[in-house]
């Protein structure tokens, strides 16, 4: 039983990894959300208006701003508007 518990966690972890993508290209982002779904890591400017536009255009919402942000976030650009990124976030279609 202990092994089964571990294995189920392991399998779910593998699934999560295989279905977590990262992109800086909005077109590619739209495609992934449309076809594969899953978690999409992307840089975001921190503006609510931009977040809402992304939701309108792709149905994806920002699930979380994860703890432990990588270094140099500000050197990247927002996925949609191209402004200086403030956070690396997880997008997904959600229940």
């Amino acid at each position: 039983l202990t092994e089964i518990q571990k294995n189920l966690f392991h399998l779910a972890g593998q699934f999560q990894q295989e279905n977590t993508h990262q992109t800086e290209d909005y077109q590619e982002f739209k495609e992934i959300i449309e076809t594969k779904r899953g978690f999409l890591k992307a840089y975001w400017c921190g503006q609510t208006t931009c977040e809402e536009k992304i939701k309108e255009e792709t149905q994806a919402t920002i699930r979380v701003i994860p703890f432990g942000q990588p270094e140099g976030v500000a050197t990247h650009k927002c996925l949609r508007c191209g402004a200086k990124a403030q956070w690396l976030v997880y997008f997904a279609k959600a229940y």
Partner: protein
Amino acid sequence: MTEKKGGKELVKEEGFVKQITPKSEDFSRWYVELIRRAELADYAPLKGMMVIRPYGYSIWENIQRLLDQRIKASGHQNAYFPLFIPESFLKKETEHLQGFSPEVAWVTQGGQEELEERLAVRPTSEAIIGYMFSKWIRSWRDLPVLINQWANIVRWEKVTRPFLRTTEFLWQEGHTAHETREEAEEETRLILEMYREFVETELAIPVIAGRKTEREKFAGAMETYSIEGLMSDGRALQMGTSHNLGQHFSRVFNIRFEDRQQQLQYVWQTSWGVSTRLVGALVMTHGDDSGLKFPPQVAPIQVVIVPISLGNWKEKVLPQAQKISSLLREQKIRVYLDAREEFTPGWKFSEWEMRGVPLRLEIGPRDVQNNQVVLVRRDNREKITVPLSEVMAKV
């Protein structure tokens, strides 16, 4: 008796849909059909409401037990607050009211009398608990207040789905009050970490923990943290939230205390919760085309014993199966001996597979002779023959 008869009829009646819609074909249908076939829940005769059946409720009981231990170990105590919340209470925190008002169910009449003030059916309890905190908290000596409530919640949802979003659901809601902003923040993060550890350890679901954006945070919170799981259809599910309420509620409910310098201060609050959604998460994360796949820690039945009904199995096999069953039970393992005569072993195999029992123990006349049993895992279908003497250790 009626339960059993009902079960049989259902099997016959659904004979033609014996196979549940494959998960890859139509995930939503697979989810709903599986929940009903496995008897986790059924639709109630009211739109958007469901009945949690015994098999589904026992998962919730396991979740409650395992989480309640953690809540108490971190110093919180359980209490219970009223189901009805006066409208004026909800109105005090405007952001909070605006966030919830589209979903609130109202009581306007008591018996024959029209009520002077409408009562909300609890959509969450910050308002009523805030009011009570203002009566209980006087000095820094009264802090922190660390309270949890196990309760039902009503939110009038337009689109519903069993366990994920229903008009009424069950949850726990923690509510705490602290002396300083830092303490409240620490509590909020501590609880999120407790949820993460609980969901990963007991439900075997890996999650991403982090902060919500301004747009996605709880109505009335300063900061919301959440854990998010990825369901097997590629959609995310919010599985638990922890809110730092700042002084939003303490200012409107006037929850003040005399601090260590005899100055009056508003308390800093948090609230946090997980709900019966977690049962839906278990189905969607681990289930496959053959049905459910429960992690042993929360499975209603951990081991099912199926005696192979050949020859005079009742004399030869059943006593041995009963012995094993009671030995496992002594080890606090949730075991079920399926000795029903009206079903074949093959039917029972697929039935318990569909219901997600982690481990099946088969025993037939030959196994009895050879002092062995056959163990079959639900997760990878691995089948092993084990000498009787090693059964306890293997399970």
